[in-house]
């Protein structure tokens, strides 16, 4: 049992590092998604300056952008598997699907957290948000758990979407409603961290608890469900 668990984690590690390496080569995140998100934030700043709205919208914007990014990244991450039918090779290799799933989630979380870090930083500068030390701790926890929740769900649906041609189109339809609670929780926690609308930092922690629950549930469900969902 423990040997097989070790093996699963070994595969997860191989998959995650492969995914991250592909991303580093293609630089879609750094050269494509990030600049886009940055410009969206700039344009928002341009459109909504001079009236406190900006600080209020910032947390929602950051998480909406993260959600969108997770969609793009997970789609790419499975498109890479599908491009030259590498996924067939993986399926046939007798590789534990749990390993593949956990690897995909890990790579996704790393990318999303990096993305959020940049976005939060931009929000701090562009929208003149102030975060104190406690807020920063809350912010980091929120980013980690929120990304985990989104990634855990996105990877399941991503796997589903490559199981057949044309299914990628299902991804957002399926993903968006399911991920909405995570989005709301993360936004509220971030609002507290940013102090938007006079929210206080302590008010954020219950939301973080909710995020942790969602993250755990999605990750557990995903680990169980990924194999059956994708093995056709």
């Amino acid at each position: 049992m423990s040997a097989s668990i070790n093996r699963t984690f070994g595969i997860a590690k191989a998959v995650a590092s492969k995914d991250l390496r592909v991303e580093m080569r293609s630089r879609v995140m750094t050269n494509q998604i990030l600049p886009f998100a940055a410009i969206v934030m700039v344009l928002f700043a341009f459109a909504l300056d001079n009236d406190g709205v900006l600080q209020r919208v910032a947390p929602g914007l950051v998480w909406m952008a993260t959600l969108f990014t997770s969609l793009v990244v997970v789609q790419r991450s499975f498109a890479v598997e599908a491009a030259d039918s590498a996924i067939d090779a993986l399926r046939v290799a007798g590789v534990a699907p749990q390993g593949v799933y956990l690897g995909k989630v890990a790579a996704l979380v790393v990318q999303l957290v990096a993305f959020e870090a940049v976005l939060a930083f931009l929000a701090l500068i562009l929208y003149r948000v102030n975060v104190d030390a406690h807020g920063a701790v809350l912010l980091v926890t929120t980013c980690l758990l929120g990304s985990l929740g989104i990634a855990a769900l996105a990877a399941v649906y991503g796997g589903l979407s490559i199981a057949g041609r044309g299914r990628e189109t299902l991804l957002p339809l399926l993903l968006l409603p399911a991920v909405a609670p995570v989005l709301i929780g993360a936004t509220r926690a971030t609002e507290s961290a940013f102090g938007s609308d006079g929210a206080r930092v302590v008010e954020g922690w219950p939301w973080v608890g909710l995020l942790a629950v969602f993250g755990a549930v999605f990750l557990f469900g995903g680990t169980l469900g990924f194999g059956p969902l994708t093995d056709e």
Partner: protein
Amino acid sequence: MGETSVVDVRDAVVLLGSFPALAEANVRINAGELVVVHGPNGAGKTTLLRLCAGLLPLSRGSARIMGFDIEAERSLVRASVGFLGHANGLYLDLTAGENLSFWGHVVGANREEVTAAAVRMGLNDRLLATPVARLSAGQKRRTALAVMAVRRASLWLLDEPHAGLDAAGRDEIDALLRDAVAAGATVVIASHELERSASLASRRIEVVGGRIIEQGER
């Protein structure tokens, strides 16, 4: 006979969309055979191989691979076969070397085995350090075959393994497949190259219109 059948497909119907790409096909292959599947374009060769790899659902009939039922014990089937389709199954952004060592990690092969497979398929250091997307068609196929060699499956399913390879490469593949059989594996290839496969294979299976019309003698 029943026990030694590595592939035992009976009255198999496989629907792709609504098209029966296999229409009541019957195939039996014993351990240690090196079999070539022939047939016109669209006959169902690829479909047969993918079915045996556990990559397609069976609509009717039955199929047992290595003794495992293909529907009920799909993951056991998959764990024991190695499959190379028309596509190479490589990550195009990674170098040939990175692809090989990824598969080495996944199947638990050590570094020497990986290097040996690369050398065997004629991949030198420059090629190993080149992203697969930039390799020539034959170099990609060589990389994919090196991955297969790393896999050490007990049932090898190869769809036109010679495609795109130069004369030397074809001989190398043949040697690789013969070695695999010598080491106890069973090999099934689909091919359009009648002469080459006649000299390589121990038996020929002819597919036409989704059915097996000739199986040779076993």
